[in-house]
């Protein structure tokens, strides 16, 4: 199965910042370790003289780099840690400037190293500025950030070993959707193209809406959308394409939801939150089970059909007691 998730506000920039922060973290780790384990080599490369003071400075800088590394690699707020590197760079440039001014010796090397440090300082500064901006515009993990005013768009696809007209007919009878779509409690036909939908617990109970089929091509395509005033405006399209094997059907689905505010919005955001694509993927897996084998497959570890994936870690893979069976019967 393949799928994609789109949100109207992207998080690619934020992720790039996190990556850049991590890269700098590894750089710090390498420098710190080198300065502490091979201080002589580091001094030689930098063109710094061997003196008690320079030995102490190199060690101190090594320890500082390790602190940067720890912050950048493990810390959540990479922006703050990137600024600590900028401060460090300023210190290093000052120290190198003093070295150039006071020592005769290996000037050329000192100047080269100073140039390199200045370059790194520029990268650090840029990272720090961007990371700080990124922290202001988006909270950490992208998946948890579905918020009011955003819309969630999901796509998923599967192949079902039935001819396209059969799969189309099953979907076109919208009352079948709750047999495999986890977030639906019930769909009731109210007219040839209109229906009334209600959501089940994972999506936030008491969410109901009217929907209409906006467009359809028999055997090929159905598009629907919610109508009137509703807490979670949504729309969907499904299209059916004969697979190259001549007997199966490729099913493609695209769904879009507006995330509202308040408790309903929270429930909807949470439902799509952790792994938005997983929900629709699992829906299609169950559609395939229903059409190919007649029903949703149950195991002892995941006995509740539609709710299967919502309950991980699962119950042990051993038969259910009568009490458990009774309790779960309405699931």
């Amino acid at each position, binding site marked *: *199965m393949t799928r994609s998730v789109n949100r109207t506000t992207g998080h690619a920039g934020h992720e790039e910042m996190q990556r850049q922060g991590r890269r700098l973290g590894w750089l710090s780790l390498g420098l710190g370790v080198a300065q502490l384990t091979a201080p002589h080599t580091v001094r030689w490369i930098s063109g710094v003289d061997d003196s008690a003071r320079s030995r102490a400075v190199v060690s101190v800088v090594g320890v500082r780099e390790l602190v940067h590394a720890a912050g950048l690699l493990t810390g959540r707020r990479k922006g703050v840690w990137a600024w600590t590197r900028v401060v460090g760079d300023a210190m290093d440039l000052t120290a190198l400037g003093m070295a150039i001014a006071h020592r005769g010796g290996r000037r050329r090397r000192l100047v080269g190293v100073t140039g390199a440090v200045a370059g790194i300082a520029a990268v650090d500064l840029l990272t720090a500025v961007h990371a700080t901006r990124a922290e202001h515009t988006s909270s950490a993990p992208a998946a948890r950030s579905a918020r009011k005013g955003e819309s969630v768009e999901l796509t998923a696809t599967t*192949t079902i*070993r039935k001819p396209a007209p059969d799969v189309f007919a099953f979907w076109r009878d919208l009352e079948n959707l709750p047999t495999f779509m986890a977030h639906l409690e019930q769909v009731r036909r109210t007219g040839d193209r209109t229906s009334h939908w209600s959501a089940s617990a994972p999506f936030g109970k008491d969410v109901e809406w009217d929907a209409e089929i906006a467009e359809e091509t028999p055997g090929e395509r159905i598009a629907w959308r919610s109508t009137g005033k509703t807490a979670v405006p949504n729309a969907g399209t499904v299209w059916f394409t004969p697979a190259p*094997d001549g007997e*199966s059907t490729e099913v493609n689905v695209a769904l879009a939801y507006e995330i509202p505010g308040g408790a309903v919005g929270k429930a909807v955001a949470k439902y799509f939150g952790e792994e938005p694509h*997983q929900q629709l*993927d*699992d829906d299609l*897996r169950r559609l*395939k*089970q229903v059409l*190919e*084998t*007649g*029903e*949703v*497959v*149950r*195991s*002892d*570890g*995941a*006995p509740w059909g539609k709710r*299967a*994936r919502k309950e*991980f*870690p*699962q119950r*042990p*893979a*051993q*038969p*259910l*007691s*009568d009490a458990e*069976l009774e309790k779960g019967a309405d699931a």
Partner: protein
Amino acid sequence: MRATTWAGRNKVEVRDVPDPKILNHRDAIVRITSTAICGSDLHLVDGYVPTMQDGDVLGHEFMGEVVEVGPGVDPGRLRAGDRVVVPFPIACGACAACAAELYSCCENSNPNAGIAEKMFGHPVAGIFGYSHLTGGFAGGQAQYARVPFADVGPIKIESDLTDEQVLFLSDILPTGYMGAEMCDIRSSDVVAVWGAGPVGQFAMDSARLLGAAKVIAIDKEPYRLELAEQAGHIPVNFEEVDVRSRLLELTGGRGPDKCIDAVGLEATHGSAHIAAYDRVKQAVRSETERPHALRQAILSCRSGGVVSVIGVYGGLLDKFPAGAWMNRSLTLRTGQCHVQRYMKPLLQRIERGELDPTRIITHTLPLDEAERGFELFKNKQDNCEKVVLKP
């Protein structure tokens, strides 16, 4: 009912658990008359397969009598009272994989397909008593088991063959046979089999049945090599001789034409430093497998030969000899056995006396002594080759 359960790493417990009930329309409940401990159960107990949970009922080799069928089971196909052997992969019979007879890759039988997909790229079939990655189905080392898609998998035994003669149709006999079949054996072939455990023994018997000129058994346990020798195969003890040199001697310097890895992810090795390398990497989880047998099979195989893998692998391995594999035109073939494909023809071979699966059984214990059975089998005590449990 009583059932063998996983109780944490290296811990097996026979416990009281509820009796199974019909959950899907095409389920059947089977009262188990014989079941067995499989080498792959040891991978679960040793903790190398993720997603095991305390209380999971173990066992995927079992047979018995159908006591109840769901409303969706065609009575012409299966009814209460039938004596059946149950294949370990659960297969729906309707998806594209099943249509292609790739039953262990069934697209519908694993309710935890999403997890399996993350691990393996695409999902795999449900398997009885074999972790939640393969569905979280209760296993068959128990008094009863629920068998989904009962109208697809279980094979009826209508002759008077004993349980011991047909029980291994559930897994290890077809697995060994598939290992040999994947080798496309010709009458001039020398076939070397790594691992003289139950699956290895059946791979050897199958290789000979399919016409191999010579079959070589590689192991370190003298009693297992003796068992292979008694069946007419040539033993090679990797603790006593250098396997590669011995294989060259036995093949006029060509190397075996076909090589079968019937060992899998917990291989032991003759030289201590390589064994230690893999053991340490496995312990710190930087590889999940100790793939020594596979490496040696690839390096030993004649150029243009086939390496057939039926030993179980679960994750990632290191130091895979890709250079030997590619430059010497080797073919690597593998798969969890598509048991349903082989049950009927192998049952016929047993009926005709061409195969004697009982030759590997060394221990028969009551189900309540399953824990001891696991100890015997794992530690290769008391010359243990195969343990059959009687619920």
